């Protein structure tokens, strides 16, 4: 599947006086699975909406293979943004039925795979005649996943696909995603709050914080830059001198700090009387975006 490069440059977006995205640059390369993570209100859905021309921007540009995405049918044909469905729409219940979503997707997505959609429908035990407002949160996520996967769009974006799904279904979703990726090599962007579970699926991770991109890098590479250092506070301070300290947690004289950078120095510090432990993606995210809230 030939996906192109999706690129945002200098994106700014505000709602009334509140600036949601600040001069944001982002490049989505083809054939990769991206994880988009950020705290509530960080601007994830707004960013995805602007990337797919479903939301407006104040300034900046979004291009796909060098051509603007806005009102460009060729670009829009290659992009599927499967949104998190809501039980209420425009202050009333969402009375659209599952079959309406399927019919619409069949009309709009040029590569729509109806056989696959029906197989997933069967597997997820979804009833096409049911209204969205009658579905559970997990079932709504299944519709989101079904549309995204069956769209076969070269760039497929899922907004909170795991919300409300039980652990078995979440595992099944990651499995389906990887199977599809292995088969089609299309680009996926998955926005999620369930970070640790999804971390192994993400080839690259984009961390969005307060409307700014903090990281857009290889997941393993990013995690490799972070360590927890713990021990007696004066020893920890000595070891961490010159390193970027992201968060500190102290109990009595025992101190734990999250640090970033200079792995050589950290390896050398193993000689000192401190424990050095790796961090997982969720810890990295909390260290970068926690702003002290998690301590």
């Amino acid at each position, binding site marked *: 599947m030939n996906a192109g490069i999706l690129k945002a440059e200098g994106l700014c977006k505000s709602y009334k006086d509140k600036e949601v995205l600040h001069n944001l640059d982002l490049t989505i390369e083809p054939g990769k699975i991206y994880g988009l993570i950020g705290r509530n209100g960080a601007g994830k859905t707004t960013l995805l*909406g602007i990337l797919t021309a479903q939301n407006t921007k104040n300034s900046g540009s979004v291009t796909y293979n060098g051509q603007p995405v806005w009102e460009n049918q060729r670009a829009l044909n290659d992009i599927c943004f499967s*949104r998190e469905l809501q039980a209420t*729409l425009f202050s009333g219940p969402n*009375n659209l039925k599952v079959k309406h979503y399927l019919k*619409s997707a069949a009309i*709009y997505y040029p590569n729509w795979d109806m056989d696959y959609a029906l197989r997933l429908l069967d597997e997820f035990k979804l009833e096409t005649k049911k209204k969205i407002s009658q579905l559970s949160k997990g079932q709504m996520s299944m519709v989101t996943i079904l549309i995204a996967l069956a769209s076969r769009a070269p760039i497929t974006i899922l907004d909170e696909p795991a919300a409300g799904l039980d652990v078995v279904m979440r595992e099944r979703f990651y499995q389906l995603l990887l199977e599809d990726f292995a088969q089609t090599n299309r680009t996926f962007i998955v926005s999620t709050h369930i970070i640790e579970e999804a971390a192994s699926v993400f080839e690259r991770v984009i961390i969005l914080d307060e409307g700014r991109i903090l990281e857009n890098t290889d997941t393993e590479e990013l995690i490799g830059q972070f360590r927890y250092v713990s021990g007696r506070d004066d020893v920890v301070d000595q070891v961490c001198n010159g390193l970027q300290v992201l968060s500190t947690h102290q109990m009595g004289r025992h101190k734990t700090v999250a640090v970033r950078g200079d792995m050589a120095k950290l390896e050398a510090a193993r000689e000192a009387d401190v424990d050095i432990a790796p961090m997982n993606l969720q810890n990295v995210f909390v260290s970068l975006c926690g702003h002290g809230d998690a301590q």
Partner: protein
Amino acid sequence: MVKSFRFLLSYSWVNLGAVFGFAAIVIVGCYITGVPGNPNVGNLFETYYAMFPTMILLCLFLYAFAMCTNNLNLGLSMGARRRDFFWAIQGNMAFYAVVCWGLQLFMSAFPALANWEIRDKWALLDLFDGRVWVFPLVCMVLMVLGCLSGLVLVKSKILGTILVTISIFVMIFVSAFMILSADTGVMNYLVETEWGWLWTTLPRIMIAVLSAGAVGGEFLIWKVVQRYVVR
């Protein structure tokens, strides 16, 4: 644009089916309850038959409302271009207007065709008989208003509710005015007063106002669709 038109058309068939079904129920109901040829029978079916054009307009208002809320949102979320969707809305509204115009003409002609005698007690069925193109114009205006009401409601719940309420009140007021004027013959009295010129030129004034309203409404719909944020 073809995709968006096809998308909207999939809903139009169902919606028009409901209007045709309603027409069939009214006709069959009138027949079963002995309305034709019996001036003493006055029932719900007779009332709905006599009011059929206003029922069509009310349905079209609601269909256009849905077209510019749920359908617009769904279409754009699946990658429709805004300008395509706007023109698909126009095509769909024209389709609705033409089909409903045909249905209205059929309903007004049916009693004569079937040799029925049904009282057109509020003179609504043949209201557009003199200027047959007025009915599709009214249909278009109502749909523009319905679409606009939906778009405003999406942007502001309060403003949208006010607009929908006003629209419904205007429709009820106009229907009631037409019914009352037909029942009481007040128009015959009014044309003889010094304001008589106003009443005789009222249809032309209304057509001009409706046409201007439709054009202005379309401009607003274009503007709002261009800035629409998918939810």
